[in-house]
């Protein structure tokens, strides 16, 4: 375990003051490791809050470079970072916020060939990706490896998230397979209100901190959705699917799949 030094007691004092967290909870946070997949709209708030909270080790994987059109919502990247690899830009901000955090970067795509190996190095995985193939890949790899993860999706004025821990409902219990290519637009095609990324990403970050400190109830076997136009938040109860192709009784998926990406999305990468 980590013994908090004087500066850390001050830095994390607002966590320590929380009866449910305390010094013990803060130490759990500092001993934790999290992989954030995607250093974009969701990855930005998730990484910033996890870094500020003192998560011991944060891994970032993203193959992209910062584009001017990212800055409307990807608050971890600044105007001066346009053209830099996203993981490099994000790592610099994380270190500036909190030098306690060890940052590991992968300027790469997550795919069937590297997913299990990278995921195995972390205690918790955050899905901050912008496309269905990788969302399903994260789900399948985490179910196979027995890793908890937070799912996140945003579109236009809406967001949705749930948390998976081994044994609880997975993404495929809710959405059996990716939608037909091109049927559902992603942000790069449909647009998104910038602050929506912050709303959803901070929910994901809170779930991570709840997971490590054991505080409260996670969004397991539930799908939280919101519509920022009305500010209606809804929670749907969901069950682990007996017929789920990966976590059900007779799973049919025994290896990771690289689904085809919509052509219009490929251009972005």
């Amino acid at each position: 375990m980590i013994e908090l030094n004087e500066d850390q007691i001050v830095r994390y004092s607002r966590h320590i003051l929380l009866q449910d967290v305390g010094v013990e909870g803060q130490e759990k946070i500092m001993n934790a490791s999290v992989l954030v997949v995607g250093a974009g709209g969701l990855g930005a708030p998730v990484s910033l809050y996890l870094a500020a909270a003192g998560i011991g080790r944060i891994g970032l994987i993203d193959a992209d470079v910062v584009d001017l059109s990212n800055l409307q919502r990807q608050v971890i990247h600044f105007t001066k970072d346009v053209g830099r690899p996203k993981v490099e830009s994000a790592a610099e901000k994380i270190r500036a916020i909190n030098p306690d955090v060890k940052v590991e970067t992968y300027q790469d795509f997550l795919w069937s060939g590297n997913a299990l190996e990278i995921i195995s190095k972390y205690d918790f995985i955050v899905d901050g990706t912008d496309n269905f193939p990788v969302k399903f890949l994260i789900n399948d790899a985490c179910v196979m490896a027995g890793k908890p993860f937070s799912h996140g999706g945003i579109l236009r004025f809406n967001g949705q998230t749930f948390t998976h821990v081994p044994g609880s409902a997975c993404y495929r219990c809710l959405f059996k397979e990716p939608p037909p290519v091109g049927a559902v637009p992603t942000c790069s095609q449909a647009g998104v209100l910038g602050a929506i990324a912050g709303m959803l990403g901070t929910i994901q970050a809170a779930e991570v901190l709840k997971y490590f400190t054991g505080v409260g109830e996670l969004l397991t076997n539930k799908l939280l959705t919101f519509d920022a136009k009305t500010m209606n938040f809804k929670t749907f109860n969901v069950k682990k699917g007996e017929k789920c192709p990966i976590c059900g009784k007779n799973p049919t998926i025994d290896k990771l799949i690289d689904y085809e990406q919509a052509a219009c999305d490929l251009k972005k990468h």
Partner: protein
Amino acid sequence: MAKITVNGESKEVRDGITLKALIEESGVLQPDMVSVQLNEQFAEREEWDRTVIKEGDSIDFLYFMGGGAA
């Protein structure tokens, strides 16, 4: 008539209505974009037209949301 719950709201539907008809009548514009949960469990698309809604059933329409990074 059968009392059911659709997306958390109470609703009355005619007896014998299928899940497919309910989806159409509920104004789901792009069924491709929707995953349907019957009593908190995923309902197979191929079974929508064979599934008859019963009193007390709870149906939720979940929309795919794929955005996040780019």
